[in-house]
């Protein structure tokens, strides 16, 4: 039976690429090591496909069509942004599995918008480059949630969507082993006057909820409260609860946390461990 065998939460901070030297060497090294560790753990899960849940930063979808959530069912390439050290190009795909997730969702009340061709942005391109690609040509299935552009998808709906992804995978004929990555920073103020502020208290609180697998606690945050304490960037918590909900009986394991004001973000790296499964190590 196809199943979701695990997942990860990881940031997608473009400043790691555009101004790598702005951060202290210790933090830089810790962040590099964290991506490498997550990538290694991902490889040991031996996935046949990776669903990466990103957030549009108002560059992919314009004011003429803003979807609540979107699935890439066809060609995928990217990332859109030209960032030093980040290669741009086509990514391997699994259209049959992607179409199955679409169809299963639509039969169960999730009217996925879809992309037949998509050039993903850095929110999918960075975790793909640092965690997936080093493990070989594993197909990627991109998902975008309305996490940065109003009207936002509600946290509870993001969680329901994650469950739908899991149920879809579990009803797919075959032996797919699917890993889900929720892509997002924790506290960060993007384009606001507080840009550069990081709120470690908030970040640690979020991390504790992830470790406990407490999706309900995360869904209980109000958006105004998130923006107040974690900045508009922390609205990407949607991607976390969606990914967590896709992993059966999830609990989180913290791999690394770095508060990096120079990169304007609290960076959390977690593995989402399925069921009572042993942590892949």
């Amino acid at each position, binding site marked *: 039976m196809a199943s979701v065998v695990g997942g990860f939460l990881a940031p997608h901070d473009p400043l790691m690429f555009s101004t790598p030297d702005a951060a202290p060497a210790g933090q830089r090294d810790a962040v590099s090591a964290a991506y490498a560790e997550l990538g290694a753990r991902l490889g040991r899960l031996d996935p046949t496909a990776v669903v990466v849940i990103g957030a549009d*930063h*108002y*560059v992919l979808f*314009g004011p003429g069509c803003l979807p609540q959530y979107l699935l890439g069912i066809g060609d995928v390439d990217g990332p859109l942004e030209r960032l030093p050290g980040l290669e741009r190009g086509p990514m391997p795909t699994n259209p049959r599995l992607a179409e199955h997730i679409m169809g299963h969702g639509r039969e169960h009340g999730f009217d996925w918008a879809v992309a037949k061709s998509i050039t993903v942005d850095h929110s999918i391109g960075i975790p793909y480059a640092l965690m997936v690609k080093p493990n070989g040509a594993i197909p990627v299935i991109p998902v975008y949630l309305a996490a*940065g552009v*109003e009207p936002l998808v509600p946290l509870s709906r993001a969680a329901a969507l994650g469950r739908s992804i899991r149920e879809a995978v579990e009803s797919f004929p075959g032996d797919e082993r699917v890993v889900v990555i929720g892509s997002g920073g924790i506290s960060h103020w*993007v*384009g*606001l006057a507080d*840009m550069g502020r990081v709120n470690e208290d908030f970040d640690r609180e979020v991390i504790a909820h992830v470790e406990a697998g407490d999706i309900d606690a995360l869904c209980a945050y109000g958006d105004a409260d998130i923006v107040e304490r974690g900045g508009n960037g922390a609205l990407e918590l949607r991607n976390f609860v969606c990914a967590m909900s896709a992993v059966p009986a999830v609990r989180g394991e913290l791999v690394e946390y770095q508060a990096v004001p120079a990169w304007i973000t609290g960076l959390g790296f977690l593995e989402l461990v399925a069921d009572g499964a042993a942590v892949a190590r």
Partner: protein
Amino acid sequence: MSIYALEKALFDLNVDRPSKQRFRDDPVDFCSRYQLSDDERARVVAFDVRGLVDLGVNPMLTMGYWLELEGSRSLGGYIKRMRAAPEPVGGK
């Protein structure tokens, strides 16, 4: 006139190459293609990102158009501008 017109203008400046060029050539003329008030147009032309965010524009759009089109193209300059008061432009 409408936050949506403002957001559309700034979105186009973020992603659409011909729009960027038109703005570089003549920002007032670029703005004339959108239903903006005099005040809104003045803020777009002057890179008054703080004023635009206060009006409700998504800050990813103000940051993006600053980095694409403002002379310095610097994030530090953007943050400094965001922390200053908005331009006191008037107009309807």
